[in-house]
């Protein structure tokens, strides 16, 4: 990231713009509420918009002074990958069930992010899944998603 | 061995009508969906009743209570309405709440979505005042409300619930006007009453039974004195035709096979005479009044009509 990026793309500026847009959009449904119901949410949304404008101005002023914005992520690929895996895991729990997804996600995440010791992976996965099953299923009769796909 | 013995006993006890299919139900665990968290009044009612229903269904029947809390029971009851009508998914049902919700918001079910099994609990409304209010009789309360319309604040658990309907009935009967203060739940309402922050409260009898020394209980909204608290007078005795309460029971999805209905109905019938059951329910603040089948359905319809009428006149949201 050696070449200078456009000023609008600074992380704080982007966040501020995003906040303004979202808060403004959420402001719309407050008009349908009774005034007393709308009071607190509208105040907070307007507060968010006003504060975001200040944030935007402050960040742009810093940009004008030539200050560089700190990079948000050291390695964006790993961040996106990690987050993607977490989301995939949640969706998998929902669709194919908690236990199979869990037995899969632990070794997958650990492997992809650098722990590549097969025996260690096996032991860890069996221990974690087994302990969860023992405590929650056997001990507490607690059900986890069985998977919509199967029903 | 044990199973054979049980089956024999059961065949003796049950109605002969249904034959082979009947003897088979239930062949796997029955799930009862409770729309509230474990430990709530409805949950405790379901879990207590479940033990006895298992007993009366016989054949090693087992009932599994599943909590699906959220949206004042709506998430659970919607799930029940959409389940397969095979007798293996039942649900708890609260009145008038479940019907009122079909009126004040979009609901994924209606009156016709259920097979009505039995109402088990009827927790009548009571009107109470704080010790410091000086209003010790219902006549004094109404006189005060008539004198200064709206000056009396009424603590209750929510709008669109049984206590709200009780107040509407009282206002219609007497012409008095009150200011409603809907707390989140009855315990905060009762506490505010004890602290003198509101003048009057509409609660349920189970909620005030332990607090009779801290509050003035002006009357109970039942036809006859409640077995749950026989010392407390009814409104009828005092010349006001106010009958109202909160009910909890069991329903199944609409279209339940006749033999399954018959079997469950028989179990609920036996429930109503079981002294152990009545005691277990009394211990957990659940005044029992079993209303089965069609009578339960009629009761639900009446309450729906009442809620619809109130909504038409004074919508609460």
């Amino acid at each position: 990231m050696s070449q200078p990026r456009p000023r609008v793309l600074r992380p704080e500026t982007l966040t501020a713009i995003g906040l303004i847009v979202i808060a403004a959009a959420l402001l719309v449904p407050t008009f349908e509420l009774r005034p007393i119901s709308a009071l607190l949410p509208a105040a907070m949304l307007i507060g968010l918009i006003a504060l975001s404008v200040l944030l935007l101005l402050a960040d742009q002023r810093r940009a004008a002074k030539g200050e560089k914005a700190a990079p948000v992520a050291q390695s964006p690929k790993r961040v996106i990958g990690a987050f993607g895996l977490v989301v995939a895991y949640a969706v998998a729990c929902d669709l194919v069930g908690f236990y199979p997804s869990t037995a899969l996600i632990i070794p997958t995440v650990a492997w992809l992010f650098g722990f590549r010791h097969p025996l260690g992976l096996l032991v860890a996965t069996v221990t974690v899944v087994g302990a969860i099953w023992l405590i929650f299923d056997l001990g507490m009769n607690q059900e986890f998603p069985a998977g919509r796909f199967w029903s | 061995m044990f199973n054979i013995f049980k089956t024999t006993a059961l065949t003796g006890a049950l109605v002969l009508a249904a034959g082979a299919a009947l003897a088979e139900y239930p062949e796997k665990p029955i799930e009862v969906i409770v729309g509230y968290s474990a430990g709530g009044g409805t949950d405790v009612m379901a879990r207590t009743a479940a033990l006895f229903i298992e007993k009366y269904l016989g054949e090693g029947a087992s009932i599994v209570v599943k909590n699906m809390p959220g949206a004042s029971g709506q998430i659970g009851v919607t799930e029940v309405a959409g389940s397969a009508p095979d007798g293996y998914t039942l649900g708890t049902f609260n009145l008038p709440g479940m019907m009122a919700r079909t009126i004040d918001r979009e609901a994924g079910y209606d009156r016709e979505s259920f097979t009505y099994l039995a109402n088990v609990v009827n927790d009548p409304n009571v009107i109470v005042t704080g010790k410091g209010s000086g209003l010790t009789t219902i006549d004094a309360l109404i006189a005060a409300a008539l004198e200064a319309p709206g000056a009396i604040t009424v603590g209750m658990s929510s709008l669109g619930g049984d206590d709200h309907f009780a107040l509407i009935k009282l206002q219609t009967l007497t012409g008095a006007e009150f200011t409603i203060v809907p707390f989140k739940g009855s315990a905060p309402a009762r506490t505010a009453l004890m602290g003198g922050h509101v003048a009057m409260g509409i609660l349920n009898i189970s909620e005030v039974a332990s607090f009779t020394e801290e509050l003035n209980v002006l009357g109970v909204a039942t036809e006859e004195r409640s077995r749950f608290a026989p010392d407390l007078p009814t409104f009828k005795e005092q010349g006001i035709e106010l009958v109202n309460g909160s009910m909890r029971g069991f329903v199944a999805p609409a279209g339940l096979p006749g033999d399954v209905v018959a079997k469950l109905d028989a179990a609920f019938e036996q429930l109503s005479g079981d002294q152990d059951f009545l005691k277990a329910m009394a211990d957990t603040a659940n005044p029992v009044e079993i209303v089965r089948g069609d009578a339960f359905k009629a009761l639900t319809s009446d309450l729906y009509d009442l809620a619809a009428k109130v909504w038409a006149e004074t919508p609460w949201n």
Partner: protein
Amino acid sequence: MYTDLLHALPNVFALANFAAVIIGVIAGIVVGAMPGLSATMAISVLVPFTFGLEPLVALGLMAGIYNGAMYGGAIPAVLLRIPGTPAAVATTFDGYPMAQKGQGGFALQVAVVSSSLGGIASAFALMLLAPPLSKVTLLFGPSEVFWVAVFGLCSIIFLLGGSVIKGLISACFGVFVSVVGSDPIYGNDRFTFSQLELLDGISIVILLVGLYALPPVIDLLEKPLKTGVDDNKLGTESLWKALPRMKGFWKTWLRGSLIGIWIGILPGAGGSMAAFMSYNEARRSSKTPDTWGEGEPEGVAAAEVANNADTASALIPALTLGIPGTAVAAVMLGGLLVHGLQPGPMLFRDNSDIVFGFMWQFLFGAILLVLLGGSLATNSFAKLLNLPRPLLGAIIIVLMVIGVYSIHGRMFDVYLMLGFGAVGWVMDKLKFPLPPVVLGLILGAFAEENLRLALRIGRGDWAVLFQNTTSLVLVALTVGVIVVPLVKSRLAKARQAEGQA
């Protein structure tokens, strides 16, 4: 009453009953220590299970879990900057910096001793002062509770962190999240987008797990390191050697206990507010307020003593009036009802052996904490950090899903948590402070609900908020504790600037 208290004691020592407390404390510490799992979740999973148990076994388990979890939450708060329970948020302020300085072991010891002391103080308050304290609760009607909430919200000012604008954005975000759900008075939907799952509002646990646990997990995976925490010097020493270093904390412990007990008896506010307030007050009266937030052991003591001091006291309004002081107490109230214990004045007469036995169990749970917690935390949990980072991250992800799913048994909450996780990651990277979000969520809707109840009682007249002594005292307190110090520090800064100029 006090004879009843002694009468109930022998039964508490029955093998099964006492074992239940021990198991509960250990389970509580474990649950609290697992990022993603919370005491609320543990007890709500436990309640249906206790249906078939003897009352004192069931209640002993719950008392143990509650005490254990309130301390257990400090373990990941110190070691990973992930508060294990909502109430442990304030523990991260100084606990994590201590761990980074190689004083993690000492931080955990301070936490366990403080937690235990807070729990003991709270148990005594419950045992000896429940009836008079419940009278205090009665003084707090909607308008008074509104002012308590305002007091709490104002103290957000001390949690803003470096940038005031970002801190306030965090606070607004928290308060806005708190209004999602049904309107407190009319019950109509606000920002639920027709999702029934949102109707009851967003549970603090969901927000907390998303905001606080997900970003550190991503961090764990982001840095390509194979071993555990960078520098794994915990600095463990035996508790007896560590104790003398805590002798200066007695004022903080006393203050924190009183704050915790006090917040506990007020309905609805809960452990996090107690911990924040205790932390603020301790810092305010410290001679070296500048070292706070950079690894001051007294900060850990202040937060932990207060979040345990509200455990038993939260049960005072729960048992006497049926209004729980914290979310956990609310779930426990359900557990009591399962065993036929209905809250109210009769409870102490009709079921005195069980109720007083339960109170003793709270006391023993708090005492056991120091015995079990010290060694368990430093010997086992801290070792978990030696796990390879990718593996640790993967396990925490699984725990987060379990913890959030188990609260209501639905995947919706898990997706919601992931949404908050994404928001939390951005906030973390852009240095938006997270504590204002937590406090805003806890107190925002709470303040609104009570304001609107008060207005209804006053029939729309805002003067109702100033009409009684308790309210006025609270207003004065808010001004005295928050506004005045703020003005003072501004003046001091201005003077300093002048001096330099």
